[in-house]
């Protein structure tokens, strides 16, 4: 029942993800969306860049969706943007459908928290004249010319 999307192109809005979960008995829909902010810790951000280890990321996202289904009886859809993402664009959207709202709220929050620590996706923040990888609670400065060639 889970729909998982990892894309270099703009991702689905929460309305679009919610429509995938349409079910006449699932009256409650909770969504989360993350939009790239124009600054972080007082520093102006020019854009973000997301990298993934795709085969494991897809497997982990499917596992999270399956665990949410088992724990809360919800269905969910998750989309994550990859590559360069401009300020104001969506980096992630999640939609969780349920018969009742408490389960949908809990599962959506749990999915978002779990995704950040168990799905191999990494965020690089680009500033005027610099960039850094975000790794858990660490920020690791990155050389000006990326070495990643793939």
């Amino acid at each position: 029942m889970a729909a998982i999307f990892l894309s270099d192109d703009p991702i689905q809005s929460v309305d679009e993800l919610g429509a995938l979960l349409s079910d006449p008995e699932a009256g409650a829909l909770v969504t989360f969306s993350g939009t790239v902010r124009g600054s972080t810790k007082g520093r102006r951000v020019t854009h973000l860049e997301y990298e993934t280890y795709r085969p494991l990321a897809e497997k982990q996202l499917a596992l999270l969706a399956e665990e949410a289904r088992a724990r809360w009886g919800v269905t969910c859809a998750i989309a994550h943007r990859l590559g360069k993402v401009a300020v104001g664009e969506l980096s992630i959207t999640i939609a969780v459908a349920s018969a009742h709202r408490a389960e949908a709220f809990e599962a959506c929050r749990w999915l978002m928290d779990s995704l950040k620590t168990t799905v191999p996706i990494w965020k690089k923040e680009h500033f005027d004249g610099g960039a850094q990888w975000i790794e858990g609670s660490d920020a690791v400065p990155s050389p000006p010319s990326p070495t990643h060639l793939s």
Partner: protein
Amino acid sequence: MQVNILLFASYQDAAGTDKLTLDLPESASVADCTKALAGRFPALAPRLPAGRVAVNADFAKDATVLRDGDEVAFLPPMSGG
């Protein structure tokens, strides 16, 4: 035997590459592979303990035994969302 190493995010920056091949003795474990990688890239060595390792796109433990041709991915702490 040979294994194919994948490096991500700051691990790429520290090693200066996102993929390489390592020669390891038969029956080498993930721990052996990590040690060989740290030896080859001293700038990467201190960052490896915070991360995780996947073998053929499944999370692996230090004790996991590798086979010729395995894909061994070194994953820094994640930051999706």
